[in-house]
């Protein structure tokens, strides 16, 4: 098998990957496509129900608390912090992948650790927010918040909020677990031995995807 990369290589003629990637990375891309459909279906369901409802609660009224700030009115401040944390963890993931390209084991470990910390911080924020809402009387099937026009809201505001942010939170959790597994392998020197850090790239793809989904979840539930 000829592995020399030349300009005239017929990429689709068989014998090697047409995209010049390992099967694992190809699978990850297709899996993300598939997962995008899962989230897409949930978000479209949310949109369908919301558009068919006469009115809907105002996110600025619902999400206005900040830990340790008592009853101060700080609309969307806390969720902005959460979003910032998650996006920063994407940045550190980029740096980890970049360090992997240079086969710099120490730097990979460092940036992966920061990514894991970012992920855990995001999950902790989410735990605080859920607890806070729960104490305000919100849960699946219970919605204490009135519509923006003052009428009584259906429970679907909280139903969708907890279901979709919960489903996203599960994805972040599995991402953190994957990152920890990969970090252990990095520290053990598995990839140094293997000669490349492609596994870091693969979990990186997953991590960026989870961040990207959050951007949509954030937009749909907090901004619109």
């Amino acid at each position, binding site marked *: 098998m000829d592995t020399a990369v030349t300009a005239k290589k017929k990429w689709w003629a068989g014998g090697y990957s047409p995209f010049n990637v390992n*099967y694992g990375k190809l699978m990850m891309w297709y899996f993300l496509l598939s997962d995008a459909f899962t989230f897409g279906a949930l978000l479209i369901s949310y949109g369908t129900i919301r558009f068919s409802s006469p009115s809907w609660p105002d996110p600025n009224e619902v999400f206005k608390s900040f830990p340790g700030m008592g009853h101060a009115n700080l609309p969307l401040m806390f969720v902005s912090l959460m979003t910032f944390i998650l996006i920063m963890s994407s940045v550190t993931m980029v740096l980890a992948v970049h360090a992997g390209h240079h086969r710099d084991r120490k730097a990979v470990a460092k940036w992966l650790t920061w990514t894991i910390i970012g992920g855990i911080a995001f999950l902790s924020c989410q735990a605080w927010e859920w607890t806070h809402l729960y104490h305000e009387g919100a849960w699946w099937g219970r919605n204490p918040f009135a519509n923006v026009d003052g009428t009584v809201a259906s429970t679907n505001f909280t139903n969708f909020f907890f279901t979709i942010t919960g489903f996203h939170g599960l994805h972040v959790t599995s991402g953190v677990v994957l990152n920890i597994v990969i970090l252990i392998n990095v520290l053990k020197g598995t990839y140094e031995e293997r000669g490349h850090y492609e596994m870091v790239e693969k979990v990186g793809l997953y991590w960026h995807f989870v961040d990207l989904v959050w951007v949509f979840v954030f937009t749909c539930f907090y901004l619109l």
Partner: protein
Amino acid sequence: MSNEATLHSQQEVMHGAGAHDHHDHEHHDSFISKYVFSMDHKMIAKQFLITGIIWAIIGAFFSVLFRLQLGYPDATFPWLESILGHWAKGGRITPEAYYALVTMHGTILVFFVLTAGLSGTFSNLLIPLQVGARDMASPFMNCLSYWFFFLASLVMMASLFVQTGPASGGWTMYPPLSALGDASIGSKIGVDLWLTSMALFVVSQLLGGLNYISTILNMRTKGMSMTKMPLTIWSFFFTAVLGVLSFPVLLSGFILLLMDRHAGTSFYLSDIFIAGKALANEGGSAILYQHLFWFLGHPEVYIIILPAMGMVSEVLAVNSRKPIFGYLAMIGSLFAICILAFLVWAHHMFVTGLNPFLGAFFVLLTLLIAVPSAIKVFNWITTIWKGNIRFTPASLFSIGFVSTFISGGLTGIWLGNSSIDIHLHDTYFVIAHFHIVMGVSAFFGMFAAIYHWFPKMYGRFMNNTLGYIHFWITLVGAYLIFWPMHYEGMAGMPRRYFDYSSWTSFNQFEGLNQFISFVVIIVFATQLLFVFNFFYSIFKGRKLTTMNPWKATSLEWTTPINPGHGNWPGEIPEVHRWAYDYSKDGRDFIPQTEPIGPNESAH
């Protein structure tokens, strides 16, 4: 991505392949690793097939049971009480049991037999063999895919034995009936088990599908460009893409349904009374579930039929000793069907309160599917036209497939028109349509493939005489069962009713219903004959003496009669030509591995 990492990973692939070459004579499998948690795609294919056959017997037997009720509503069958207990008190199936049987018949046949049993079997068996790979991209994920299917099977099987019975709101599991445990006895734990089983099934499909896609794209042997692949591989590829993109939407729908059942949400529920009592649920939409369900549900029918199409194309070309007619048109039409499959789901919902304006677009897109379907049909007919046809059981079943696909497909044009659908929706016409075009056709494709590739799986032939008996009774029987249903449906006879005798307008069909049920029993018995033939031939069938019994061009026939894990001893063959060089330049067939001669042009 850096070149360095790529080059390293390419080297890794090469090392992997090198290691495999020595694999055959060094490694000894234990019973567990060879037959149970096998990572060999050929063994996993057999696991899918045999599990599918067991499910098919159960699912078909259920249809015999409810056909007894429909054909002989006044008769009693004491033996029914001895197998079904209180579900058939006094030898007559209860209405609850009837609905459970109908629901499980649909679920089992659509998902467990014609999805897992059909594409699970033949994608696994044929993809590595026909693209020239040692195994799937990830044999471990492949193994997981089967065992998730097995778990799903266990849960579904368990649901048949719970006190309140399995799910019985129809295989589509529409809320509110399926969302409210108090709505019927068949909406209790049976639905939870059904949803759990289906979630596991989706995982299995995803693991399998990702593997099929990346194997086809990444693992083709040298020279096997995409347009040199047999049409089977193209059909498995599009099937996998459909599955990977549509099953997750179903999963989302199921998550919301589970929440409605247990977390007090009202995603699908609004303004409902049960036994005169108003429920608190408000603001949900039952139609939302139908959208989510049919976004999978419609691609699902193509997930079922595309593999059959691909395999029939292959079997027809081999047994007519002619190249497939319109190879690129075949790929193009598969692609067109794959795209349109995602754009037509609401034609299942014309009468559910869908905006008629929206319905008009779905009518147009639905009717467009007739174009690629017709291209395929004409290409199959022109492939066997003036061919030197060998009437093996496999080729007979392939021709039968084309026949049922035409007669079932034509009624699809009726149903695709929303105005006609208002009359025909939820009648026996619909049952007749989809059973012929999707049920019988897919089964014919599957039978063709089993008869054709059985020698590759087990190194023996199946019995031909039994095969011919199987084919003729099944073909004639299928038409005798489903053709009359068109008339019943046009007369307005609704589906899913337990007993029609109290409607004077349907009394005229009493004799016809009896006739259908009678044929069902005969056809079911004939399928048992096939099952006998299958298992008998595994151990006692006529042994293969040559590697290439059908004189076919594709790569799977270049492997030894009983290939080990790794498929080819020594090097993987290189491919030089497409898979359809039959009757070319005075030669009967030219294998794909033979280089193009100096005086020869590629196809």
